[in-house]
């Protein structure tokens, strides 16, 4: 991996974001620091790489254009994750409307073409897991992805999703049970 030309100190970066002359360079640091974690979070939601790329761009553009509203009360990462999740949900809903799919929790259409995806090299079991995850309700899907793939702390998830830690733990537990039953039903 190429060595970053930036040193990242969140407190400094947030301070620099509030000054006209330093905001742009500070935002470049933010983009470099958060591109990968946000991309993977979005990618697991929208599945397709090109769609994830669009949503990631929209996320950063939205963050940049509303940077004046970010006063540092919450963590920068929390704020960015919130924008990314909202953008992902908006994108999925738009896609559902385009494909005449009801705005329910059924996201199976997202994984229909997974096998043909140029940027997916998973085997049968991984495709099956993605299909199982796609059957989960929106919030459970997010909780599962954040916890299982990103190993995010429940406390951080709680701040991002605005749900109590207890509810998130229960949600993750239910998600695992549903995935297990999906596997046992399709075996």
């Amino acid at each position: 991996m190429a060595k970053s030309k930036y040193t990242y100190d969140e407190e400094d970066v947030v301070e620099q974001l509030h000054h006209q002359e330093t905001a742009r360079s500070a935002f470049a640091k933010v983009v470099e620091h958060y591109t990968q974690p946000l991309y993977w979070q979005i990618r697991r939601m929208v599945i397709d790489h090109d769609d994830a790329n669009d949503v990631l761009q929209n996320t950063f553009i939205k963050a940049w254009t509303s940077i004046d509203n970010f006063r540092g009360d919450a963590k920068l990462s929390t704020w960015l994750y919130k924008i990314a999740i909202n953008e992902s949900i908006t994108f999925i809903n738009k896609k559902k409307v385009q494909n005449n799919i009801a705005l329910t929790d059924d996201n199976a259409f997202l994984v229909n073409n997974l096998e043909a995806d140029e940027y997916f090299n998973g085997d049968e079991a991984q495709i099956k897991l993605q299909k199982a995850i796609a059957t989960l309700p929106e919030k459970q899907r997010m909780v599962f992805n954040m916890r299982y793939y990103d190993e995010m702390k429940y406390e951080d998830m709680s701040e991002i999703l605005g749900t109590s830690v207890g509810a998130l733990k229960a949600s993750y537990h239910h998600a695992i049970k549903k995935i297990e039953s999906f596997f046992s039903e399709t075996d």
Partner: protein
Amino acid sequence: MLPVSQIDAMKQEESPILKKLGKDAGFEVPEHYFADFSKNLMDSLPEVTITEEVKPSRWVRIRPYVYMAAMFAGVWCMMKVFTGFGGDQKKAIKTEMRADSPTSGDKAIMQDNRRINDNAMLNYQDSINAGTQKTDINR
């Protein structure tokens, strides 16, 4: 509240199926995607105007407290002024009450006042008589 069995189950978060699958979802990205993404994005960002937060001076920060203190001081002063005035009045009344017995002139005035008050209790004929006679009406 969740049942204990469910909490115990949540403690053993990992499922055997998930353990077997591992954490690689199988997703890939084009080569140099992340490096190119950052560069392309920064080039395409629009200009924004940042409203810089102006740090308030010490006077601006303490001003509300100073105003409040001044207001309380004002109220206290007003109370002091009014209480002082009331005290003088009471003292004056007490002084009057402690004065010697009324003079003969004062007595005449007091008698006249009593007569006027008594006239209000007379009937029509009595009031005519009272007006024409110089006799004592307090029969």
